[in-house]
């Protein structure tokens, strides 16, 4: 059909075609090694008390591992912009959910005391 040849149909036209979707066994094993090391590192760092750093360290390792899986095992490194947009988009909105919820929780109980704009108000002035 006219599909692949129509210049306007951008996704079909400049796609990667049906080329290599899967990664080479060597890459795969490398990633595997990295994941195992990451797991060991998580456990190892968790056994130490790093104070406030406990969670950031554990989460950074987790994020690194997840990124490897997404990029290599799930081929996002080799995918089209659309797939990448879906991945980025979903994480973006997850961060929105997180971020704005915590915009509430982290700023609670800190009600500001701003000087009254209405301090010239006769009613308030009486006090």
């Amino acid at each position: 059909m006219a599909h692949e040849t129509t210049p306007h149909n951008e996704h079909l036209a400049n796609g990667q075609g049906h080329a290599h979707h899967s990664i080479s066994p060597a890459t795969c094993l490398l990633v595997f090694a990295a994941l195992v090391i990451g797991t060991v590192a998580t456990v190892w760092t968790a056994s130490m008390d790093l104070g406030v750093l406990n969670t950031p360290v554990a989460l950074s390792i987790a994020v690194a591992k997840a990124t490897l899986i997404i990029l290599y095992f799930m081929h996002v490194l080799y995918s089209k912009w659309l797939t990448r947009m879906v991945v980025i988009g979903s994480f973006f909105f997850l961060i929105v959910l997180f971020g704005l919820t915590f915009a509430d929780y982290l700023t609670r109980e800190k009600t500001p005391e701003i000087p009254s704009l209405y301090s010239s108000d006769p009613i308030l002035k009486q006090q």
Partner: protein
Amino acid sequence: MTELTLLNALFSWAALAFRLPLFPEQASANAPRVDALYFFMLAVCGGVSIAIVLLIFYFAVKYRRRAPDQLAEEAHVPIALEWAWIIIPSLFFLSFFAWGALVYFEDAKAPKDALEIACTGRQWMWKFQHPDGQREINTLHIPIGKPIKLVMVSEDVIHSMFVPAFRIHMDVIPKRYTEVWFEATKPGTYHMFCSQYCGTEHANMIGSVVALEPHEYQAWLNGAATGSLALRGEGLFNKLACNGCHTGDAEARGPYLPGLYGRNVQLTTGEVIVADENYIRESIIKPGAKIAAGYDNIMPGYDGQLTEEQIIELVAYIKHLGKKYDQFEPVAPPTAPAPRPAGQNPDQTLPTGNVKPSATPPATPSEATSPRPAPEGARPKAN
């Protein structure tokens, strides 16, 4: 704000003429500010809507299809218009935001000298306790011309305190204090609604706020006195043996509580927080949650053993301990109509040593200077 008064008069006139209420009573210091914003937005948005509707009408009539095959005409509309109607409304939107935030911020935090009234919401009633312990249900007596702060908590589900005449609104949540404050400006009786759906009788969780002249309020207080909040808190404090640890001397196992309220507390985690009602409350029911630096986590938690009211009393007591005398603003005018029963004055029954009682409280400023008419002139609202 003369234009507001004018508008208000207009609305009242309409209300009288058509028996059609159009505008709620303005009975708090806050109300005119909210209404000013309302009228501003009404003017801008009303203007824009009318303009759009008229324009649509005009175009729709002028360019109506006069013959069944009449084509649309080539129109040269500058694309710059697009940017104009992105930017200009945005500026208006910004002004709405800024004004709205200001109005809100202004009233977010109660003034320091606000009269504190404890409020408990439960299915389906409102309970209030005045600082001197007078309790009432579904009716709240307050003095006008004085900031009132409601410290509220729910015993079951979420409720919401709504007094339309004061333009205030705040959810009342279980296990956490929320607060709202207002200053009534007009004597009268106003609606008080629960506006958060809370079950079967939600629509009947209503009551009234009775705003009184200060001296009348005082008279009411004296008539309704049932013992001080803090006083009962003290009783509990002793009964529950809190004083066993919080003795106030150097070897005490628990921290020294006087002056705690409003002070910064250093926790074992290194964090510094302000000891507000919620902190004190938490310290009582879940002491382990935040541990004061230098102490062990040995205080028993009282979660589930105390009713909300008892906790309020304890908190009131601890807050009371904290206040220096000159922070107090007793509502009693120098010439109180009826003398207090002995022992009812919280200031005379505090544990000795921490706070010195004073014999003559200063006069209430609002009483001294209040130019307002007597409440006889106020028209009570239907309820």
